């Protein structure tokens, strides 16, 4: 089997039992999963370029490479910290919460570029608190003095287009998708009968992790409720229309290369919407990881969405 399947994304692509781990490698191709916890779209695009270039340097024919990208939240941002330039570098890499750092550059044995030299500090969501207080203080500077939603949307569109044009030039087959809808401005009002106050407006991942059903750390029955039938992202404003400076970038994206989950409630949906509304699975990966989908949901997603694309049945 000459084929290599490069998969990229955030923790929805590379953590406990995520969808790339359910690809039958003997049958479909060897999986090189460059997904990384907390990765934003800048980091994701870099990890793809690095690994594709690495494979080509190793002699791989681009025709034998296929790439799957699951884009993450638009707000996320990474900063390269190095021992050369950052006096805080040692304090950061030796401190707690190391899993929020990483480098996509690896050696021939798949070992990451040593963090003692350099690493990418991943912001995750705005104003997230790290266990490493020094990193939190640093990232707060970014959120307070540099971040705007409009610029982060432009950066995400540019990351998408960078990969689209890079792979198109090389003639590499690829499919793009999202962890959840990242293109609309949408919210959801909590329906009646659940622990969270009825009518509370919730946003983004808070909708899909379904903790609003019980207001506890984790429960095994977090199914999408039957009375949660209203429109969520369907027919809501697109961010590219809210921010006209990004519209021309949106228009250049090749939407034929995307997979979305859509129904009467959602548009431009990703893995999260598919698990809640299509697979009708309970959300969560146990007490230790209630925010992520379970390996069994990932397995279904791989079998019902990824494999048909790999086998050219879509």
């Amino acid at each position, binding site marked *: 089997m000459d084929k290599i399947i490069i998969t990229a994304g955030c923790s929805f692509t590379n953590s406990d039992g995520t969808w790339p781990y359910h690809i039958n490698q003997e049958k479909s191709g060897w999986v090189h999963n460059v997904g990384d916890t907390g990765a934003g779209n800048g980091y994701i695009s870099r990890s793809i370029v690095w690994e594709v270039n690495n494979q080509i340097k190793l002699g791989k024919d681009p025709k034998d490479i296929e790439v799957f990208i699951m884009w993450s939240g638009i707000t996320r941002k990474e900063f390269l910290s190095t021992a050369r*330039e950052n006096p805080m570098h040692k304090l950061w890499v030796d401190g707690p919460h190391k899993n929020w750092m990483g480098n996509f550059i690896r050696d021939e044995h798949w070992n990451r570029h040593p963090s003692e030299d350099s690493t990418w500090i991943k912001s995750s969501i705005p104003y997230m608190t790290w266990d490493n207080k020094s990193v939190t203080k640093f990232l707060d500077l970014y959120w307070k003095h540099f971040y705007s939603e409009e610029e982060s949307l432009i950066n995400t569109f540019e990351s998408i287009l960078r990969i689209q044009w890079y792979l198109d030039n090389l003639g590499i087959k690829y499919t793009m998708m999202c962890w959840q809808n990242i293109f609309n401005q949408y919210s959801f009002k909590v329906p009646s009968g659940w622990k969270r106050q009825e009518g509370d407006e919730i946003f983004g991942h808070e909708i899909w992790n379904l903790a609003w059903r019980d207001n506890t750390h984790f429960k095994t029955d977090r199914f999408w409720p039957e009375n949660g039938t209203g429109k969520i992202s369907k027919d809501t404003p697109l961010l590219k229309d809210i921010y006209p*400076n990004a519209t021309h970038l949106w228009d250049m994206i090749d939407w034929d290369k995307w997979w979305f989950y859509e129904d009467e409630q959602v548009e431009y949906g990703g893995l999260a919407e598919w698990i809640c509304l299509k697979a009708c699975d309970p959300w969560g990966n146990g007490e230790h990881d209630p925010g992520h989908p379970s390996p069994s949901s990932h397995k279904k997603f791989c079998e019902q969405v990824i494999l048909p694309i790999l086998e050219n049945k879509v």
Partner: protein
Amino acid sequence: MKHLVTSGCSFSDYENPERTWPLHLQDLIQDEYRFYHLGACAQGEDYISRSVICKVNELLKDNNSDDIFVIVGWSGLQRRAILVNNETTKMHYRFKDWKMGPSESMRGVPIGSWQDFDDEYQKIQSEEHNIIQSMEHIIRTQDFLRVRNVDYKFFGFCNLFANLDEENFLTEGRGTRIDKKYPNTSYLFDIMDWNKWWFHNEFGGLGDWVNDNIKDGFDGGTGNSGHPLSDSQKLFTKEVVSKWIK
């Protein structure tokens, strides 16, 4: 009519008091080409890449790719810009009086208003990170033009790929290529199409060419500093740039 898009920093800015190469080139071939000058003072690769991609994409709606040619004089890799919008005008005193329209354009290109934020970014972002970000902008522009079959030529306002030095932008004395110093940048050197670049000697740019070919060719007070004089830009256009036009 063919179309020629130019962009870059002050070395390519048609409003620079010292006439720059885009205007000198226009003098030579204006009967054959319609010009779109996007170069702007103090801008880095953030603005330059966005201006070129947006403008070329717009031109491609009504023109064949064969009729479009792009020349970019890339700026310093350490430069960064911030998008001035309704959020950032509330964050920064220097933008407090900025009058925001529903959409903003620069040089007539609807990409928003990107303003120099070098000093602020240098406080939180390493030089190595800035180089990566700038090279990504260049490569994204390269890949966009290639995939749309638009021919182009790139060069640097000076040597961009030797060790950076704010005070001395010329090549001399600046040491080795930057990926030797900054290993996280090396894979980007692999995917740059160097065949589409013009260099003066090894990675030298417009400033290096003027320095080596013209005595006191700059407007700075100490001979080889500041911006190239109009006559220097004119000679550079005749000797170098005009030869890229087919």
